[in-house]
């Protein structure tokens, strides 16, 4: 590079000038989209209008197209991790059989769902889990042999699985997976049962 520093500076100044002009000319489509969504949605059944608003985490994921800079992501994950409430009795694993039922159900939270009914885990919608169920989705990774591949139900693994189900954003700031415990979709016992489905050596997942 033989260019004189002054030319270089001039070039940078010109580039930033033109890019700022271009930036100003391009409308803020995200802001326009949000304004439109706020105008065009309405409460229906239990799906109240307020759901159209982003929470802090959703705002950051949406702004950064689900890939926030690492510094931001670390802060987001720390904040989400703090929301996780662990069982007072210290027990993290319940009954895998009831976990399987919860994993099968995809009901809850839509405007056609009856409010107050137990919400399903929606797990098979996105994951392979027990080999007996072949109607499984592929949006998430396969969880077949989850415990077996991780050396069984160690306390660390139980805590990981419990945390992941309670608030998936604790480990991946903009994970596709809902925050089932955080939003009150699944209660403590339901999460324990799902942890058992994944980690209990007797669960078909680990056979």
């Amino acid at each position, binding site marked *: 590079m033989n260019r004189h520093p002054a030319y270089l500076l001039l070039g940078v100044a010109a580039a930033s000038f033109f890019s700022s002009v271009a930036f100003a000319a391009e409308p803020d489509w995200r802001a326009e*989209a949000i304004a*439109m*969504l706020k*105008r065009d949605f*309405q409460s229906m059944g239990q799906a*109240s*209008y307020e759901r159209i608003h982003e929470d802090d985490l959703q705002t950051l994921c949406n702004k950064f197209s689900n890939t926030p800079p690492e510094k931001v992501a670390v802060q987001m994950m720390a904040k989400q991790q703090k929301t996780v409430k662990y069982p007072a009795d210290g027990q993290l694993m319940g009954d895998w059989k009831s976990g399987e039922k919860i994993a099968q159900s995809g009901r809850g939270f839509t405007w056609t769902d009856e409010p107050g009914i137990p919400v399903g885990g929606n797990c098979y919608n996105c994951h392979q889990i027990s080999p007996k169920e072949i109607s499984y989705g592929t949006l998430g990774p396969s969880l077949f042999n989850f415990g077996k591949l991780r050396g069984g139900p160690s306390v660390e693994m139980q805590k990981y699985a419990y945390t992941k189900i309670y608030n998936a954003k604790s480990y991946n700031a903009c994970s*596709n997976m809902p925050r089932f415990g955080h939003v009150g979709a699944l209660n403590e016992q339901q999460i324990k049962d799902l942890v058992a489905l994944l980690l209990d050596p007797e669960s078909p997942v680990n056979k």
Partner: protein
Amino acid sequence: MKNTGKLAPHRAGSAVLLAAFLAAAALLPLTAHAQTAVVEKDAATLEFERFRAEMEEFGPSGLWEDKGEQLWKTARGPKNASLEKCDLGLGPGVVKGAYVQMPRYFADADKVMDAERRVVWCMVNLQGFKEEDLTKSPFAKEGQDTPEQTSLITYIAAQSRDMKIAVPQKHPKEIAAYKIGKEITGYRAGPYDFSCLSCHGEEGKRIRMQNLPNIASSTGALQAFQGWPGYRMTGGVMLTQQWRMADCFRQQRFPQPKYASDAITALLTYLTVNANGQVYKGPGIKR
């Protein structure tokens, strides 16, 4: 099947087949629910595919096409006018090819409108129907009469059968609708943090056994556009793209989008422009 209207002779035989199909279709969900074994579920899927293939031979949507054509051409409403002066973008009364060139900007409304929104606009402005009456219960429900605009849309869509999708992106508001629609697809909110792209943003993904088109790709967008308006076997009703978009938001756990609103038009603009250049096969059948 209340809205059969006048059956064209070539469709009389189809009606018999349709009745047989409907009886079988009514049994299908029972089979799927009662038997959880893997093999039988697969058989149900295969059975459905076989029915779909047979159904597509003649298409149950023909019944609504006929009804829609009647509605289009008959003087009705407080102003006792037909819709033959309704401009779907290619000039007053031109229906041929209009469906695959919407959403588009309409100067008289100063808005970008998708086909269904435009029909509602024409029914209100040309025929004098009340907008609130048309938007109160805009989608077909099992055991009830099909809304008139659904039949009209089916007729209009059928007039674009086998034509290339060519949605314009010239007017600044058409471009804005696309850009905003794109933003909406990525907007995560609600209790489950879902956006359209949570399910429709990658190639080759499924929910359970249901394949999910990636609406950002041109082949995926076509898949999402194709087959609508469609005869939906669940409930045995004719439904439109407006319904489809609303039902996606329902499953996203969002609140309900208003019928014929800017947001749905923006989303349909994004989706349909992405499918530009490919051939639309006309009203279809959906599971």
